[in-house]
């Protein structure tokens, strides 16, 4: 049954020559439009990505040779704390919320998010939080001769964070900045869930919703139950530091392990919060560039939801070496291994989508191809870590660092790059340069593998994390050197990407509505979309409304 179509012509009158237009800055500062807010989140995150990247490069230079004196231990400890905190809270969360903000209303046929003013508030709170964290370099006092930025690690274990071991205010900058970021995250998550449940266009039952909003729904739900424990723990930490309470005060009978439980009850679901949107991007890009529908949509939804639930039960696999006892460790081994089943199902479904298709290796797709291999490897090293006794060796070593960077960079960042190249034409109306895109891809790929493949080895050779230098006789030097070289390649790729983003805005080819011949609602509106998104509220009959329009003889609605 073919879907009737309406030519919707934008009949908005040109504004009369009245009072002068408000200037650009005022517009962006006061906007409540989800698209502008989404772009601000993304731009903000890109700036912090570069800052966090510089922090990483400084650390890699220090570690390139044994007994190096490039950076003092105090500065190094601040660098890894800031690098981790920045990348998780001021790059990962904002950039993914940014994409969600921009795309979710468009993909469900809505006009904006459910609570536009809350949306703006959440952005500005999060943005302030990042600036607050970096203000610590100027404003905070800390350990003698250390001053300034927090240096307790992004995970801020107790009792190192107690006032007696971390005097001054540097730790408090960490606590407050992350707390505020959490407030912003909960606000945006609330918006995403409400938008998806309450603002879908006619005919878009949950079972007809594209996979990106589904994954954002799971991700946002996770945020409520994951970020809140961290918020609670930070309130407790601040009470300890300032009012003399004893939550984590081991001298008064408090427990260092309790902080770990609270932190990881946040920390583990947090990484799923970060990875689920990456899955979402791949779910949209891979079918379009394989020219096939997603294989096993119901299973993909079920797998994503179960990943969300199971991720709440695995947190203590970060604590296998704490001495929880055989029963505790065994439970968490089981839960962690079980999560590999729905994750594997997703990989197989992607494989089956590609299978029998007509694969086009445009830039968005090659980033997703790299994602597929790299995410597979990241999952497999995760299985190694889930075997608790193996983790007793691998835990807290560079093997773990390599594993999670394989997820954060090799999977999430690569999927994000794919998403940039894929949706940039929709946002700006211009295509990004394919040539520069290929340069970006290959440089970054080589750099990524040089750094993170070789990084596994020092971990296997006994190198722990968070050390500012190491002894010469351990056999770690050569590997660390190669790891550092890879960082340079990644930096080069990233700079080319940033250049591509700017250059294409002015010199890119015109994109039109639908440069990729795709099937979801955002490709039905002009590029860039008008502020109201859809002139008329759409009605959909299947998961791929534009496929139905383009193939009226064989619409998806016949098969669902």
């Amino acid at each position: 049954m073919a879907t009737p179509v309406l030519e919707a012509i934008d009949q908005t009158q040109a504004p009369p020559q009245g009072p002068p237009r408000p200037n650009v800055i005022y517009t962006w500062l006061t906007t409540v439009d989800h698209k502008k807010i989404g772009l601000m989140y993304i731009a903000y995150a890109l700036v912090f990505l570069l800052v966090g990247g510089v922090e990483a490069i400084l650390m890699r230079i220090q570690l390139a040779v044994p007994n190096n004196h490039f950076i003092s231990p105090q500065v190094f400890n601040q660098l890894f704390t800031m690098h981790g905190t920045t990348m998780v809270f001021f790059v990962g969360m904002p950039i993914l919320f940014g994409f969600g903000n921009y795309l979710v209303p468009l993909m469900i046929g809505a006009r904006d998010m459910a609570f536009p003013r809350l949306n703006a508030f959440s952005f500005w709170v999060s943005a302030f939080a990042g600036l607050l964290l970096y203000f610590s370099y100027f404003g905070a006092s800390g350990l003698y001769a250390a001053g300034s930025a927090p240096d307790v690690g992004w995970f801020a274990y107790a009792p190192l964070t107690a006032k007696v071991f971390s005097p001054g205010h540097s730790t408090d900058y960490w606590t407050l900045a992350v707390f505020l970021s959490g407030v912003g995250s909960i606000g945006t998550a609330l918006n995403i869930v409400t938008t998806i449940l309450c603002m879908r266009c006619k005919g878009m039952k949950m079972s007809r919703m594209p996979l990106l909003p589904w994954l954002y729904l799971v991700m946002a739900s996770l945020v409520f139950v994951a970020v809140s424990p961290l918020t609670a723990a930070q309130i407790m930490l601040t009470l300890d530091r300032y009012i003399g309470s004893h939550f984590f005060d081991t001298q008064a009978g408090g427990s260092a392990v309790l902080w770990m439980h609270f932190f990881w009850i946040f920390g583990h679901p947090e990484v799923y919060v970060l990875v689920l949107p990456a899955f979402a991007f791949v779910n949209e890009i891979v079918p379009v560039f394989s020219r096939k529908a997603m294989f096993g949509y119901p299973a993909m939804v079920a797998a994503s939801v179960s990943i969300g639930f199971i991720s709440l039960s695995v947190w203590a696999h970060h604590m296998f070496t704490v001495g929880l006892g055989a029963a505790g460790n065994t439970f968490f081994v089981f839960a962690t291994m079980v999560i590999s089943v729905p994750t594997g199902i997703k990989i197989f479904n992607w494989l089956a989508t590609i299978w029998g298709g007509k694969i086009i290796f445009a830039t968005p797709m090659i980033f997703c191809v790299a994602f597929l291999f790299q995410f597979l490897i990241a999952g497999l090293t995760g299985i190694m870590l889930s075997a608790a006794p193996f983790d007793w060796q691998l835990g807290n070593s560079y093997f773990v660092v390599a594993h999670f960077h394989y997820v954060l960079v090799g999977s999430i960042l690569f999927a994000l790059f794919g998403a940039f190249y894929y949706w940039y034409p929709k946002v700006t109306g211009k295509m990004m340069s394919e040539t520069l895109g290929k340069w970006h891809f290959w440089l970054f790929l080589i750099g990524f593998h040089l750094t993170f493949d070789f990084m596994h080895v020092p971990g296997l050779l006994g190198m722990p994390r968070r050390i500012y230098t190491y002894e010469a006789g351990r056999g770690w030097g050569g590997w660390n050197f190669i790891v550092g070289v890879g960082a340079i390649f990644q930096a080069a790729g990233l700079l080319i990407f940033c250049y591509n983003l700017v250059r294409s805005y002015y010199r890119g080819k015109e994109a039109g509505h639908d440069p990729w011949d795709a099937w979801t609602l955002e490709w039905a509106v002009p590029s860039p979309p008008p502020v109201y998104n859809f002139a008329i509220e759409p009605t959909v009959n299947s998961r791929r409304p534009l496929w139905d329009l383009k193939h009226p003889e064989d619409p998806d609605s016949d098969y669902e």
Partner: protein
Amino acid sequence: MMNTSSTIPVEGAIEAPWTLPYRGTVGMACLIVAEAAIFIIFVVAYIFYIGKSISGPTPAQVLELPIFGTICLLSSSITVHFASSALRKNNLHGCTAFLAGTVLLGAIFLATTAREWYHLIYEKGLTIQTNLFGTTYYSLVGLHATHVVVGLILLSTTLAFSLTGHLKEEHEKKLEVLSLYWHFVDAVWVVVFLVVYVLGR
């Protein structure tokens, strides 16, 4: 030149009416889930530290069941429910009366908590610094009291609107959302009461 036309799929007539939940209720439900998670962590800390204080007064030594305050707070859930249903039936005076009752009962609860704390601090020597019990008790009950204060501010504002005639039947859904928050605050008190005053003593 920007292309301003678009091709949007549109159906003629749709069979069943397309209704989705009210945004306010869903948003409040999300907030409640997040807040519940925060409370759960404080409750877990309380339970974890039961019996682990190395000094100072124990719960059994200093705590008394706050029966009166609890009855007031739980009754305020009933009054706010009636306020909401009164508004739905366009009974504006009834709504005002029940809102006032809710605010009053909530304020009485806060007063009983304040009195209890005064007694604990000045007569029993229990502060947040005293021991693990003090730490977890004041933080949990205090967090709840903070949420009661926020709720009372919102309810008082609504009461003010109602008294000045600005609260109308069309605001019914919004009052429903607020009462949802208030019911949550009461539900948390039930948990706190059971964990602190029953289980922990």
